[in-house]
């Protein structure tokens, strides 16, 4: 038999069988070069296997959101909304307007509401128009919102990564800083109040 050559990995990793394996064994016994190579591969494999599998630092669990039956799910919010709307209708004149999925309700002679465009951060005045309440539209809009939520929740027991931890730490630091600024403003305001009071008293005395 010739040297094992490329088949040496098959031999060392047990992917040879039958007659081929028998011949390879005989060859390795007789051939110092192949025997040496086999021994080196086996030694490296033994060293690698000193590295044991480790346990994951946390376990992954998928959680499924359980939704209550339709009737119970909708009964409370729809009932509450209906009660509020009826009460308001009785109490005051009202106008309702839909604009890009946003419901705007105005009462009596209140000024026209403003819809804030968050993407562009621009305040856009919107004219209100009185119209009858479209309950079906309100319900379908809410249903659409809920349907868009993922039914299969993300992973539980998720630890914050280093970047998230850093962001939270930064926010906490900012909060402490803002609290200190607030205290400083409070102190300054108190001082100003005292000064004004003193000036007023002084002015009175001078008069």
């Amino acid at each position, binding site marked *: 038999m010739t040297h094992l050559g*490329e088949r*040496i*990995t*098959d031999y060392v*990793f047990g*992917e040879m069988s039958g007659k081929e394996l028998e011949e390879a064994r005989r060859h390795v016994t007789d051939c110092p070069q192949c025997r040496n190579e086999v021994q*080196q*591969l086996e*030694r*490296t*494999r*033994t*060293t*690698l*296997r*000193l*590295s*044991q*599998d*480790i*346990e*994951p*630092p*946390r*376990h*992954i*669990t*998928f959680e*499924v959101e359980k939704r209550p039956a339709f009737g119970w799910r909708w009964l409370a919010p729809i009932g509450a909304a209906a009660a509020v709307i009826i009460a308001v209708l009785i109490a005051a004149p009202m106008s309702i307007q839909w604009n890009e999925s946003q419901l705007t309700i105005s009462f009596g002679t209140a000024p026209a509401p403003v819809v804030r465009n968050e993407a562009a951060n621009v305040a856009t005045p919107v004219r209100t128009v009185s119209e009858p309440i479209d309950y079906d539209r309100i319900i379908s809009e809410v249903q659409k919102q809920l349907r868009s939520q993922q039914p*299969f929740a*993300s*992973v539980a027991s*998720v630890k914050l*990564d*280093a970047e998230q931890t850093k962001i939270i730490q930064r926010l906490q630091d900012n909060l402490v800083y803002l609290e200190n600024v607030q205290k400083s403003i409070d102190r300054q305001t108190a001082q100003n109040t005292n000064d004004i009071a003193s000036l007023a008293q002084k002015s009175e005395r001078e008069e």
Partner: protein
Amino acid sequence: MKLGSLRPIDDRKIVDRVLKGDTEAFNLLVHQWEKPIYNFIVRLIGDREEAMDLCQESFMKAYRELPTLKDRNRFSAWLYRIAHNTCYSRLRKDIGKTFVELEPGTSSTRSPVENQLAVETALQHLPEEQREAVVLKVFHELKFDEIAEIQGAPVSTVKSRLYMGFEKLRSILG
């Protein structure tokens, strides 16, 4: 842990349950494969905390793509392939990364902890394909054709990667 022979029927049954709407059954697959996939990723990436994130990402992808699994008896090979793709996306961002050099020594002169670290570090000195072939063969005991399927390469290439990887590891580890 062997890929081909690892209770493929059990996996198939669970996959069937998940695809029929029993989404919570997916946790059984996670429980079964979490540790091997995590260890596969740790040895490929070399960062235990990041490996956890990638492991989680792999299972999320597996859940989302489960309906595309053609051969339900081959769930494990398919899952390793997903983990492989997830890791390679991450590894591509690490081009040019330098690795910590090993302290000189041999396995007989190192403590078990030192050996663990030495092996993990030595693996990081290999090119990705060689490292993956070594990890899947030595630690996961996969067949060459299974590794070829995961790597998307011919069996002969996988054997060559393994051999070259071993040569380099021998020079590093002693």
